């Protein structure tokens, strides 16, 4: 028995899943292999720790659950239950699973035709949005917000909201709920988010399931305060797409232009994208509270101020189709296809008028506080890129020290709303790239060295002698690469036992498969991250917002039996294939290769359009 097989057997044995013969062979191997004996000991200690971990203070949810159910029984109108579509748990599971992947798709593969001037506007818009962020230093807006379909008993909710922003990291978003609710039992969705450099706090009602409203929502809002926040921390995000929608348009194809409008006396240009693409903008409205969800295929019409590209109005229009209906039913929504489920419009706007900025409010007393561990300081261990984007100036720097975690030194630079951070740590023992780049990365040349880009190109990891770094920011990918290449470190290839070791190039993929298929003329996505493992080629294509898809090709002549009962047959590239709505996946077999395209947010038609565009790579 070899060590790898022995370790698998140790794991199976721990779960009482080892046949006697294997158990004998395992015992024999362990008696002669100290390394595997150590492994077995560690597995046993892990089990002991996890099974007997101290769980301090398990909440008792029974009273609130039962109170909610009593409230539903009292308040629920008969018509409401009749409108709901019953969903079996497995189906709900599949619906949830379809949205889990998150990184997957929603491309406007088939856009409407554009006329002359609109073509030029659309073609240049994504780059203009990304460039505009550097010129935005302050924003003060008031806006109205109308939400529809959140609850059958509350078909429409109305809000007045304010957004105050001062670059680079001061922001106050406030939503005041002015809805006429059916009774006082409903808790208003008043929401606040305040980011003040190293302090971040949110306040809003708990997000109870729709079917448990109104009784399940406690009257007291939940307030979370995080201190010691590092610059532009992911875990405590600042919703900058409300200021200029950079993430919604980075990697974007030219959007559909829908016309011009005047909003609050300002000229705007209108574009239409999917909710998947505009996810960073839409998610920004709900840092807390219970604003409704939107289906990734919903249409978003967005009106951007012509010069600054600040979003001054947008609306979300419910898409149609059986998958969309099932998605809505699983959330308790009743949406008519084609109706606007969200409408946002600015009522007063001041751009680049920092004098209009107001003092940021303090969090309410009694809020739960947490410390993220950032302490200002020189961050000497982190190198400075010699090639910074023009106009970028040093911003906050310091170190993050958390219990049990490695020390991380952080430097940051900004220009208006745009930002760049470099984080470094010594003694990294993660067996994967530092910086949470995701499972699939793209190798990129950094002078004589090498770096690794995340799927969407917003992060770049470097493994170097004695130090590991990650650069991230809102700047274009090539600018990020130039900054990384100018760091005074000698970057190395990742060790062969790291999680990303299967990372490859097109050349690797072509060598692995006799006939590699790649999409032709695919707009709106970056270069794919490629992984080659055991003959299987995986390509991850990321787009703007939460769009993206996986293309997986494996040698084989037959598909495995489907796990889901709702799998549909369809023809893909003139051969029989199948579509799993729950997994957002089409699969087929072609030239002794099983091929799948998976997306959480693309429709079957869009997946098929990608499939049709595949051609053999030369």
């Amino acid at each position, binding site marked *: 028995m070899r060590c790898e097989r022995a370790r698998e057997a140790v794991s199976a044995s721990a779960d009482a899943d080892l046949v006697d013969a294997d158990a004998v062979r395992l015992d024999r191997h362990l008696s002669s292999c100290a390394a595997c004996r150590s492994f077995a000991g560690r597995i046993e200690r892990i089990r002991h720790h996890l099974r007997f971990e101290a769980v301090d203070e398990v909440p008792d949810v029974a009273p609130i659950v039962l109170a909610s159910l009593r409230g539903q029984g009292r308040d629920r109108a008969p018509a409401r239950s009749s409108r709901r579509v019953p969903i079996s748990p497995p189906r709900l599971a599949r619906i949830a699973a379809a949205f889990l992947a*998150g990184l997957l798709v929603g491309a406007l593969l088939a856009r409407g035709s554009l006329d002359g001037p609109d073509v030029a506007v659309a073609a240049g818009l994504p780059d203009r949005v990304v460039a505009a962020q550097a010129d935005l230093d302050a924003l003060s807006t008031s806006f109205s917000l109308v939400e529809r379909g959140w609850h059958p008993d509350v078909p429409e909710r109305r809000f007045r909201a304010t957004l105050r922003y001062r670059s680079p990291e001061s922001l106050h978003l406030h939503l005041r709920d002015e809805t006429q609710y059916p009774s006082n039992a409903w808790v208003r969705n008043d929401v606040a988010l305040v980011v003040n450099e190293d302090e971040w706090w949110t306040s809003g009602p708990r997000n109870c399931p729709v079917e448990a409203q109104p009784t399940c929502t406690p009257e007291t809002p939940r307030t979370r305060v995080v201190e010691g926040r590092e610059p532009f921390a992911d875990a405590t995000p600042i919703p900058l797409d409300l200021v200029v929608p950079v993430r919604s348009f980075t990697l974007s194809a030219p959007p559909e232009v829908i016309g011009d409008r005047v909003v609050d006396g300002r000229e705007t240009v209108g574009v239409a994208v999917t909710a998947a693409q505009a996810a960073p903008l839409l998610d920004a409205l709900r840092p807390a509270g219970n604003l409704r969800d939107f289906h990734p295929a919903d249409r978003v019409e967005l009106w951007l101020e012509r010069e600054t590209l600040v979003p001054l109005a947008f609306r979300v229009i419910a898409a149609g189709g059986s998958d969309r209906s099932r998605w809505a039913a699983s959330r308790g929504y009743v949406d008519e296809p084609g109706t606007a489920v969200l409408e946002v419009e600015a009522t007063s706007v001041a751009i680049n008028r920092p004098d209009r900025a107001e003092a940021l409010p303090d969090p309410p007393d009694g809020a739960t506080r947490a410390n993220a561990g950032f302490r200002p300081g020189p961050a000497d261990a982190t190198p400075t890129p010699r090639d910074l984007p023009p106009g970028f100036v040093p911003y906050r720097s310091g170190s993050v020290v958390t219990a049990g975690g490695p020390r991380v030194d952080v430097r940051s630079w900004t220009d208006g709303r745009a930002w760049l951070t470099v984080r470094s740590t010594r003694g990294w023992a993660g067996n994967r790239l530092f910086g949470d780049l995701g499972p699939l990365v793209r190798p990129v040349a950094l002078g004589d060295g090498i770096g690794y880009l995340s799927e969407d190109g917003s992060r770049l990891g470097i493994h170097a002698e004695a130090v590991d770094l990650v650069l991230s920011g809102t700047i274009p990918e090539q600018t990020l690469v130039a900054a990384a290449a100018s760091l005074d470190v000698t970057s190395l290839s990742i060790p062969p036992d790291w999680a990303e070791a299967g990372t490859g190039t097109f050349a690797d993929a072509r060598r692995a498969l006799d006939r590699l298929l790649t999409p032709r003329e695919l707009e709106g996505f970056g270069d794919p991250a490629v992984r080659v493992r055991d003959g299987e080629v995986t390509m991850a294509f990321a787009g703007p917002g939460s769009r993206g898809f996986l293309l997986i090709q494996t040698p084989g002549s037959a598909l495995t039996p489907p796990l889901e009962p709702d799998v549909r047959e369809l023809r893909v590239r003139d051969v029989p294939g199948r579509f799993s709505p729950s997994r957002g996946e089409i699969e087929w077999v072609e030239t002794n290769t099983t091929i799948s395209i998976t997306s959480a947010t693309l429709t079957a038609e869009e997946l098929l359009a990608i499939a049709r565009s595949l051609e053999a790579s030369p």
Partner: protein
Amino acid sequence: MDEPHPAAVRAAICGDAAAFEELVRLYQAQVFRFLCHLVADRSVAEDLTQETFLRAHQQMESFRFQSKFSTWIFQIARNAGIDTLRRRTRRHRALELVRPASSTAGPEARSELTAALASLPRKLREALVVVEVLGFTYREAGEMLSVPEGTVKSRVFHARERLAEWMADVEDDADEM
């Protein structure tokens, strides 16, 4: 994993509030623990525990006794957790792998191991939690996670392998001190 008496499940299906409360009290601690591991946030896990039982109540009539009740309830909990994970931005993934400076002996090590567990990819993490922490078999876990039994076995192994590597590093550090 404890299983409720079928009569209690049938009573809950028929709308007996006391029977349903019994089910909530039987599973709420384990569901909370599972969700804490899945979403790595106590307050979110608390909300999701509540949501799990509300969803379960709504769907009780669809429980057909074709699987264990515990498998069914954790499937709902997982779905609720996955819905929440989906909402997080792609960048906002699990914690980066931490490297504790102390040995694995005390309660600190235990919390560090929990942090290391939180750093695993979700698929590995949830498989390990379902099998190792909650004690389900590979077959039951496969049913819950909608993957073949062999996939569960493989994911549990790879999760353990990574945690063992982490533990080996910690032990090496302790030896050097």
